[in-house]
C-alpha cells in the first residue's frame, strides 16, 4: 500500500518536549480572525493574504512579542491561534508561512492561510518553499502551484543488482579522513565489520562537498556516471549528511540502489527523496537528537515517510556521531541496517 505523503518534521516531538516548548492538544476549536485580533489587542486593515500591507506588517511586528508572551504564559488554543493570527502578517515570509501551516488547524476559514502558502511556493528561499509545498500538499494536493513538484520521475534502470557498496561523504568533507579508503576510521570499520565489499580502490567516488543545489546536482550526475562506468548498479550506499541528498539525486536519475543508508541526513522533502522504485532493499536513516548542523542547514531532522526506517541514537547535537565507529559498536548500528 502506498505511504501517505510525507511532511518534513522540523523538530521531533520528543526533542521539543525535552527542550520544554509548550504543547497543545490536537482538535482545538476554530476561531474567527476578528475574535483573534481582539484577543491579541490589534485590528488589521485587511484580511491576511499573499503579503501583508506595510502598515499591517508594522502592527504585527509591534504585537508579536506580547502575543508570544501570552502564549508562553498560558498555552491554550486561543492564545496559540491569536499568535498565529498576528504572525500571518509578519514582515518575514518564512514566519508567515510557518504560521499559515498551523493556522489551517485553528481557523474557521482556511483561505488566508492558503494564500500565504501559495505565495510561499514562489519564494526565493528554499525552506519557505519547502514548508509551503508540504502544507499545501496536505490540504490542497491539486493546487496548481504544486504541479511543478509532481513531475513524472524517470523509470528505474533494469541493471542487475550488485553487492558492492560505497561511502558518499557530505558537505565540505571531501578531504576529511574518516571516509577515505583504506585507512579512514569509518571506511575501515565498515569494511571489516559490516561489508567486506565496500569499495576501496583509489578511484573511489568523491564530490566537491559544495553547499548548494548546483553542487549537489553535479555530484548526483557524477555519482550516476561513476556507478555506470564501474558497472555496479544496485550497490549499497552509506551516505553522510548531504551525501544522502547526492545519493537520492543519483537514485532519481536512474541509479539503482540496493540499500540506502542515510546518516545524519538533513530532510529537504520533496527536493531530496529516494526513488523507492529504484531501491531494491531498503532505506534506513540513522540520526541523533536535535542535530545542530541540520538546524543550521534549516533542514528537517527526521524522515517521517514510513518507507524510510528511522533510527535515533541516544546522542544529542553531534552531526558527526553517526559515522563514528565507536557509536556503531556501542549502539549496534549494524543491526539497524
Amino acid at each position: 500500500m502506498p505511504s501517505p505523503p510525507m511532511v518534513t518534521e522540523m523538530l521531533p516531538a520528543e526533542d521539543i518536549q525535552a527542550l520544554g516548548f509548550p504543547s497543545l492538544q490536537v482538535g482545538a476549536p476554530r476561531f474567527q480572525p476578528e475574535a483573534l485580533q481582539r484577543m491579541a489587542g490589534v485590528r488589521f486593515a485587511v484580511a491576511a493574504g499573499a503579503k501583508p500591507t506595510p502598515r499591517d506588517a508594522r502592527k504585527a511586528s509591534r504585537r508579536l512579542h506580547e502575543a508570544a508572551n501570552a502564549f508562553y504564559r498560558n498555552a491554550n488554543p486561543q492564545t496559540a491561534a491569536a499568535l498565529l493570527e498576528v504572525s500571518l502578517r509578519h514582515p518575514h515570509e518564512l514566519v508567515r508561512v510557518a504560521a499559515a501551516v498551523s493556522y489551517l488547524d485553528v481557523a474557521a476559514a482556511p483561505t488566508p492561510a492558503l494564500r500565504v502558502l501559495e505565495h510561499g511556493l514562489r519564494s526565493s528561499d528554499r525552506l519557505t518553499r519547502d514548508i509551503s509545498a508540504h502544507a499545501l500538499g496536505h490540504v490542497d494536493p491539486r493546487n496548481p502551484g504544486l504541479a511543478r513538484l509532481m513531475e513524472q520521475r524517470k523509470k528505474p534502470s533494469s541493471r542487475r543488482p550488485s553487492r558492492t557498496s560505497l561511502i558518499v561523504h557530505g558537505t565540505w568533507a571531501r578531504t576529511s579522513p574518516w571516509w577515505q579508503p583504506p585507512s579512514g576510521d569509518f571506511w575501515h570499520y565498515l569494511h571489516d565489520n559490516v561489508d567486506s565489499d565496500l569499495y576501496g580502490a583509489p578511484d573511489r567516488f568523491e564530490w566537491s562537498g559544495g553547499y548548494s543545489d548546483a553542487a549537489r546536482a553535479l555530484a548526483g550526475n557524477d555519482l550516476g556516471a561513476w556507478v555506470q562506468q564501474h558497472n555496479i548498479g544496485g550497490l549499497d550506499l552509506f551516505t553522510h549528511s548531504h551525501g544522502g541528498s547526492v545519493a537520492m539525486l543519483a537514485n532519481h536519475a536512474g541509479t539503482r540502489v540496493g540499500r540506502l543508508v542515510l546518516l545524519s541526513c538533513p530532510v529537504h522533502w520533496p527536493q531530496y527523496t529516494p526513488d523507492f522504485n529504484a531501491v531494491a532493499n531498503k532505506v534506513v536513516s540513522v540520526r541523533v537528537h536535535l542535530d545542530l548542523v541540520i538546524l543550521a542547514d534549516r533542514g528537517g531532522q527526521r524522515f517521517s515517510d514510513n518507507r524510510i526506517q528511522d533510527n535515533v541514537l541516544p546522542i544529542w547535537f553531534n552531526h558527526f556521531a553517526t559515522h563514528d565507529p565507536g557509536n556503531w559498536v556501542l549502539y549496534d548500528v549494524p543491526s539497524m541496517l
Partner: protein
Amino acid sequence: MGPLQLARLYALKSLWTSTGFRSAGRALVDALDSSDEGVRTVAGMFLVQAGKQAEPLVEEAIHQRKNLSTVLVIAGDIGAVRLEPELRRFTGDADPQVAKAARDGLRILAAATSGAEAKQ
C-alpha cells in the same frame, strides 16, 4: 560542536548580515580552519547562505590563500561570477587539493549560472 559554539556562529552571522560588520564575517571565514568539524561545516554553510554578501570576504580569503580548498568551492556555491578569473588561476595551483577545489568551484559556478539563466 556544542550549542554554545553554534550560538556564537549564529551571532557572528547575524551581526555580519544585518549590520555589514565585516569582522564578524571574517570570523566565519577564519572558522573554516577550526579543528572542530562541526564549526567548519556550519561556518561554511553560513557563508553560502549569505550569498552575494559573502563575495568580498571570499575574494579577500582567496587573495590571502586562506582556507583555499573550501573558499574556492564557496565562490562557486554563491555564484560569484566576478571571481571566475581567480578560480581559473587556481586550477593550475601546485597544491592538487586547491587545484581540484578551483575546478569544482568553476563547475558549480557554471551550473549555478546556467540554472539561473534558465529560470529567467
